[in-house]
């Protein structure tokens, strides 16, 4: 097989298995794909290390020991042993192992085959019919090469856009894919969900981008758009019934959870300190209050009801801080609350955080009147 084929195969498999688009890692894997051919002085690796090639050439035929599982194990153990001393070498160790292994494995599809199980002298091939196997430098190999280039470009593109699973999840647009991305990046980035669906109350079409606040249920989400909260899922209590949902990683934002104990204390006083510029703050938990009978909780049937009042207590679920302060802030409460803050890291250096807050808004229920959620395709 030609050197360029080895480079491409090893580079592509390295990118595929490691899910990376890092050029130095892919290059390491690609170059490692040339190493098995060190057993002949005519190869690039053999020309670079002629004394090693000479040892192989004097003892055995081409595609022997260096094209075997044993050689791969040797390379892997050497590379991974090096990572004990140089931890930064780990991705390169994986790349070299994968690149080397697929470098020789590609020769299985050539007419000559490889001694994969060396020192057992069996020439492993695929398929069994030699006429259907590749011949080095033949037209068949160039056709395969063209396919390889296409596959390589696809994989590099997929990896540079979040990886195979992310792209696949985008393709199938299922809630589990969003959960996957949320679990992966939710603590350090804003997750922007693109939802297509219908409003559960009147079945109006919904299409738009929402900020994912938190997961609700197995495959449901509390999302925010234009200062309004919605529950998007396929459950009966959702405001948005999902047809398609994909997610993208947004700006850097660190999510922190803090717990607050209230012992008949004014809610305003306790929670005001969490009102930070540029941060989206949501409160969850349960509070008991003596004034519960006199308080009226505003309710918009098109939005998620993040504050619910029963006879004895308030139940808060992802309630925007401003809304909590405006609705029940003046009361004295007892209970435990969890405060989720989504802090834009860029906010500390500039005013972008405010922009972000303004963009998604968390100002409170009904604060902007009857604005549509997302892009309401069919408004009522």
């Amino acid at each position, binding site marked *: 097989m030609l050197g360029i084929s080895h480079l491409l195969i090893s580079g592509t498999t390295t990118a595929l298995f490691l899910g990376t688009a890092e050029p130095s890692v892919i290059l390491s894997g690609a170059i490692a794909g040339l190493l098995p051919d060190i057993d002949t002085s005519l190869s690039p690796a*053999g020309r670079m290390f002629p004394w090693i090639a*000479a040892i192989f050439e004097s003892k055995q*035929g081409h595609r022997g020991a260096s094209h075997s599982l044993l050689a791969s194990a040797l390379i892997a153990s050497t590379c991974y042993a090096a990572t004990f001393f140089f931890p930064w070498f780990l991705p390169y160790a994986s790349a070299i192992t994968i690149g080397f292994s697929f470098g020789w494995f590609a020769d299985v599809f050539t007419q*000559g085959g490889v001694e994969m199980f060396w020192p057992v*002298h069996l*020439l*492993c091939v695929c398929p069994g019919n030699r006429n259907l196997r590749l011949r080095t430098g033949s037209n068949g190999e160039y056709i395969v090469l063209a396919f390889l280039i296409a596959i390589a470009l696809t994989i590099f593109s997929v990896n540079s856009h979040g990886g195979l699973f992310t792209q696949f999840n985008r393709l199938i647009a299922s809630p589990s894919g969003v959960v996957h991305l949320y679990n992966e990046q939710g603590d350090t980035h804003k997750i922007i969900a693109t939802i297509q669906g219908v409003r559960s109350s009147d079945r109006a079409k919904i299409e738009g981008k929402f900020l994912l606040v938190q997961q609700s249920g*197995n495959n449901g989400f509390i999302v925010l758009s234009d200062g309004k909260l919605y529950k998007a899922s396929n459950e009966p209590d959702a405001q948005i019934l999902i047809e398609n949902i994909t997610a993208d990683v947004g700006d850097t934002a660190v999510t922190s959870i803090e717990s607050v104990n209230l012992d008949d204390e004014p809610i305003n006083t306790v929670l005001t300190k969490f009102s930070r510029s540029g941060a989206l703050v949501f409160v969850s938990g349960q509070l008991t209050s003596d004034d519960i009978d006199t308080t009226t909780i505003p309710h918009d049937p098109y939005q998620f009801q993040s504050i619910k009042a029963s006879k004895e207590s308030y139940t808060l679920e992802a309630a925007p801080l401003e809304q909590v302060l405006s609705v029940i802030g003046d009361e004295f409460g007892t209970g435990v609350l969890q405060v989720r803050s989504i802090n834009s890291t860029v906010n500390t250096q500039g005013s972008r955080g405010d922009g972000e807050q303004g963009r998604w808004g968390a100002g409170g229920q009904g604060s902007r009147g009857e604005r549509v959620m997302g892009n309401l395709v069919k408004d009522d």
Partner: protein
Amino acid sequence: MLSHLFIGKTSSQQSNSTPSLTPDKPPEFHVYRQNEMKQARAALLAQGALCLWGEEGCGKSVLANAIVQSLRQEGYLVAHTEPSTPKQMLSFITEQFGLETYTLEGKQLSLEGLKLQLSDFMFHNSAVLVVDDAQLCKPDFRHWLKKCKKRGGCNLLLLATNPPLADIFLSVPRIQLRPMSEKAIREIMIEAAYHRGIKLTASELARLQSRAGGNPTLAIRAIEEEYLGIDQEAADHKRYFDITPLLLIAGTIFVIIRFIGVGTSDQSLYILGGIGGAIFLGLSRLIYSLPKEGRRVN
């Protein structure tokens, strides 16, 4: 050409830095299959029978020649024959043992007469009979060999390519002639290159050696092809192992992924595993429907 198979002791310790490994003078005679030769000689000298078998071109005939030559040098009476008609073979063996093939009346002995005379002779004398390519001998002749062995006193060496499990081959102990070592094959190739007058570097020999597969005949053929400028990558030896089924087993990984997707309610894993499994299933059907390689040259 086969006589070259055991002539191969060269100066393999030549420096690797020299571009050509072809020696300047003819190497000395060398028998590579020393163990098999010793075993065969021991069996024959102990009035036993033995079958040496192996693949086509593995060096049986040359080994037979070497054994016959060594026994004759030591003064043993040895007849060495190859497949022909039973009567021709029996006549040839009779002549080699120095027996008469004609009756007192001057008539040529019949087939049965030859058989009787030879079996009597081998029973009463320590004569050795070596039959090359014994699998090609007629059943009638092989049956006679079996009877001779049963009677006793028959020092018999059979050399066969993948013999059937029948008649004489069933009753005679067998030794397989396994593929030769890489070192031996390399030396045979260097010797063949010397006789062809071509100079080959270590890398060229390494490339050609992978076409030999431990078979000395194929090793010499690779040199011949190089001499004639025939560019070839695949070889005819029996060391190829089709790993297609192993690759298809890898398809089960997708099925496992699918189950993991079901177990963890991960829709994307479930779908990816399903798609991968279906593709592998289709590929396996495709690969198994590919035409098989014929045993004839094509």
